[in-house]
């Protein structure tokens, strides 16, 4: 059916962003600004909830909503479409956005106007990305999210934030340009921007390019290097949104546009297989490398950032399987990851807010001072490690089920990753909340209510999504998959069997063992110093973080350009002789080559 609801969903946040800029004046004091901003958040919450609810209602009836703005402009019109997948991701995004914006009310101290207008733009762009019907609308919105995120990352305007932002914007723009190229190839192949179809040889390149672009967006190994820099540099709520939603856009792009061609194969090509093994191998690599690098980190937000890479690996692994179960697991994990990773970043933001430091070796013994933060953080940590009964457990069980049908080794890899994740969270929680409190942390207080509220809500969601796994899976995830997997059916997964519980116990045990062994060996610790002694490990880690390669490429390009600049003559005579040479060259070309 046609309706203007999706259009409104996309436009209203932009409109409100303009409202923020024009009505909230710089000369107001902070309280006045906050009051206005809270009103606007309230409006957004009500309006968006209504719009999304109406659309959800319509979709539950089995319809698909279409909406178009200037559809007569073939190239540049905006076409939106809402189906199960879009509405689920849009809801998750909106929920996380709301949590983040309420959290930011006290967390963000400076430049409120800029921050909130950008946050609103980001909301609109995210909604646009997931509601986009065709590739070009998707591309337009993905670029908007990129720029808005860049400006949010550099919100603090410190040197490291600016550098991280620079790296972020360059890498993601290169990724976006790959998507650009692939969309153009698709258009020339098929004559429309609707879907990526593998028909000729062009389709193959287009699909791979699109996939690469999405990988950059998703921040998976080996294209992840912007992610560990950008997360710590950004304000914590922004990191929460970045990790919870922004990198999911890459996964969403893969689900929306690449997943349909994974199983749809031309005769005599195993193209779908190649693609799916590409996605899966990237997924596995990110899982392992992400978690290994996370173990070695001493900056709390950097640690979480590496875990984002690792968890994106899970999602991609599920998608890459190309089966119904795999997609369900991937999607479920996507939703869950948004919840618990958002929560983790908010918790660490609370810690940073109260203590003013992000370094593990300055933290310790906070549980007495910040009980609620500690509690929510433990829930999130258990969830991310896949411990029952939290949501991470549920989605990892689905994924394990899906993977077990494919290859048993992968299941083992998943369990090892989960154990290492558990180990690294033992380290994080242990060093942050337990142990001896540092002297300077005696006066620390629990964070104020606007920050606690989103954390508590997210923690409750983590529990809810875990306990009611069967319900959530069949109501939401299968519902989201209807457009992609035919026919619609109910998935039956036994969540609470002996096997799953034993696996969880195994993970816990392995995690403890890994933690103890590693800390005995001095591989993981509070400070960088301890860890630098294990030289082979250091080498391995340096080798694993391919950051240096990209940096070297960038430096090389920069040097080449500088070189070009220095050999560029300033002498007029040389330029004039170039003119003559050009003239002669053109003559020669036209007279002898062409005629």
């Amino acid at each position, binding site marked *: 059916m046609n309706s203007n609801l999706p259009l409104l969903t996309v436009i209203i946040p932009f409109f409100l962003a303009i409202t923020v800029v024009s009505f909230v004046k*710089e*000369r107001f*004091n*902070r309280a006045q600004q906050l009051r206005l901003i809270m009103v606007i958040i309230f409006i957004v919450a009500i309006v968006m909830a209504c719009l999304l609810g109406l659309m959800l209602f319509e979709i539950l009836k089995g319809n698909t909503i279409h909406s178009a703005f*200037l559809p007569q*402009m073939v*190239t*540049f019109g905006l076409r939106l479409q809402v189906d199960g997948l879009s509405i689920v991701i849009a809801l998750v995004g909106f929920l996380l956005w709301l949590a983040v914006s309420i959290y930011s009310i006290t967390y963000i101290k*400076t430049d409120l106007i800029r921050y909130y207008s950008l946050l609103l733009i980001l909301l609109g762009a995210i909604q646009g990305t997931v509601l986009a019907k065709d590739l070009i609308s998707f*591309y*337009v919105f993905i*670029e*908007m999210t*990129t*720029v808005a995120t860049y*400006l949010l990352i*550099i919100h*603090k*305007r*410190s*040197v490291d934030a*600016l550098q991280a*932002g*620079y790296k972020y*914007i*360059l890498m993601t*723009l*290169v990724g976006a*340009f790959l998507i*650009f*190229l692939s969309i*153009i*190839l698709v*258009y*020339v192949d098929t004559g429309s921007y609707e879907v990526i179809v593998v028909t000729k040889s062009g389709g193959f390149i287009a699909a791979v390019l699109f996939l690469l672009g999405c990988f950059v967006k998703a921040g998976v190994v080996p294209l992840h290097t912007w992610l560990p820099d950008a997360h710590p540099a950004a304000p914590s709520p922004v990191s929460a949104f970045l990790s919870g939603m922004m990198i999911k856009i890459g996964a969403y792009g893969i689900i929306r546009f690449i997943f349909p061609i994974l199983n749809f194969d031309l005769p005599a090509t195993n193209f779908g297989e190649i693609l799916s093994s590409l996605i899966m191998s990237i997924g596995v690599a990110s899982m392992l490398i992400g978690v290994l690098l996370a173990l070695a980190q001493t900056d709390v937000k950097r640690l979480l950032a590496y875990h984002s890479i690792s968890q994106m690996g899970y999602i991609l692994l599920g998608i890459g399987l190309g089966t119904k179960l795999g997609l369900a697991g991937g999607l479920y994990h996507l939703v869950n990851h948004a919840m618990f990773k958002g929560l983790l970043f908010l918790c660490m933001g609370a810690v940073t807010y109260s203590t003013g430091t992000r370094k593990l070796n300055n933290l310790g013994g906070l549980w007495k001072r910040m009980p609620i933060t500690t509690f929510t953080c433990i829930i999130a940590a258990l969830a991310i490690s896949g411990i029952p009964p939290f949501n991470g457990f549920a989605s990892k069980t689905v994924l394990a089920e899906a993977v077990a049908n494919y290859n048993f080794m992968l299941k083992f890899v998943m369990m090892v990753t989960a154990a290492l994740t558990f180990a690294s969270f033992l380290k994080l929680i242990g060093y942050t909340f337990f142990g001896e409190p540092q002297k300077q942390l005696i006066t620390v207080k629990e964070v104020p209510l606007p920050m606690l509220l989103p954390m508590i809500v997210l923690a409750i969601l983590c529990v809810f999504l875990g306990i009611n796994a069967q319900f959530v899976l069949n109501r939401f995830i299968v519902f989201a998959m209807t457009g992609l997997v035919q026919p619609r059916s109910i998935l039956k997964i036994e969540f609470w069997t002996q096997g799953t519980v034993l696996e969880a116990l195994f993970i816990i045990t392995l995690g403890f063992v890994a933690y103890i062994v590693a800390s005995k060996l001095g591989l993981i610790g509070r400070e960088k110093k301890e860890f630098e002694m294990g030289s082979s490990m250091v080498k391995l880690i340096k080798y694993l973080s391919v950051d240096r390669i990209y940096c070297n490429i*960038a430096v090389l*390009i*920069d040097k*080449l*350009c*500088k070189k*070009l*600049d220095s050999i*560029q003559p300033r002498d*007029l005579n*040389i*330029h*004039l002789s*170039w*003119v003559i*040479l*050009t*003239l002669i060259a*053109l*003559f020669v*070309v*036209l*007279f002898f080559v*062409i*005629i």
Partner: protein
Amino acid sequence: MSIHIPILIIISPLLAAFLVLFTRKHKIILATVSIIASIVFTLTLSSQVLSGDKIIYHLGGWRGPIGISLVVDGLSFFFSLITLGLGLLVIIYSIPERRYGRTYYFLLLISLSSMIGVIYTADIFNMYVFYELLSLAVYLLIAYPKTGVTLRASFNYLIMGGVGLSFFLLGVGFLYAMTGTLDIFHIAERLPAAFNSSTRMVLMSIVLIVTGMGIKIAVFPLHGWLPDAHSMAPSPVSALLSGVTVKIGIYCLIRVVYTVFSTEIFLLIGSHNILMVLGVVSLLFGASMALAQKDLKRLLAYSTINQLGIVLIGLGIGTELGLTGALFHVLNHAIMKSTLFFCAGIMIAETGTREVQGLNGFSRQQPVITFAFVIASLGMIGIPPINGFASKWLICLAAVEAGYTFLVVIILTASAIAAAYYFRVIQVLFSGPLKQDPMHAHEGGQVIHGGNLFRSWPIYILAAACLLLGLIPTLGISLVKPAVSLLLFHVVP
């Protein structure tokens, strides 16, 4: 009266130019009014032109090949609109600068008037005359601050521009020798016959004209004058140079290549490949040179070479889509680049330095100007929903459709480099110490004083245009469409 409109559009700034010399107080009003009058005259023609008519005005009533005629068709209307619109904004932007005396406005008006002359005239020799007039005014405008660097930049431009226009005139001579007429449309009629009898002469003239105009457009090996001239000139003049004057070269190239040599001959001798090669080379060269620059305006100047490369690629592809993209990119580049130069002017005036590194903390002082700068530079990189994206998209699409997929890869590589240098500037703009008290900074310089109003409004207008054309690209494309169909099919839709 109404049949004399084409000449009135040229006369009005020309007359005002000389009147400006005799008045002390009213120079700005006079200049502004004359340009507005020209714009109004142009707009009265719009319905006629956009519906596809061609307005021909015979100067002094002399018809045909002997007399000079002015032609307003889709292409010239499009270019004259860009010229006059930006010209008006440049004049407004110049108002607060007290140093600019009467001669400044005189030269500005002369250059604008002669640009319109170049655009409207159908006589190729007359085109040369107007172009020389334009160049003379521009040389003087560059040298206007009379500092050492500007004098040298102006002199270099004079020598290279003089050589370029000599090539052009020699090419015109060959055309005249073959066809015996100077009217563009008559040459176009007679050229196919001449092409069969004296191929070499035709080639000679096309090479000379392309090289001559190449110097004026500053494609890569012929660009020597541009970085100095564009970066050293006063900021409004830089905006005029980069936004408009260079486009006049593009206009002449399009006229000569697509109208005089008609597309058939052009494709026959395969010289669209030449345009494409020149475009690719200057695209990559401009991008990589801009990355190495430390001086803000020099960076912008090299970025002009980069963007004109894209335009040339679009022209070289030569399909309907390619031409649409190229012309649309001309419009977009004019808007974006003048925004950037206007912003750069304010930045240099406020911070007192031309170095990129010296700009830190500017976003605190002038958030709106910074916003405009960010918008325009995003457009330059080609990020939706800013206008640069739309035209770049069209050109890339045209390239793939015509089978030149590698061109898209090159354009995107250059865009990535463009992102690298523009974001380096943006990063510096946003850097700077965090202010503790949000009220504190207002004592500093937040208050926009009267003079700045004239400086900031052109920027706001241009930035709004960037966004508008990016959100609704059809506005621009519908302006371009008559020109494209005129060039390709010699008919009007």
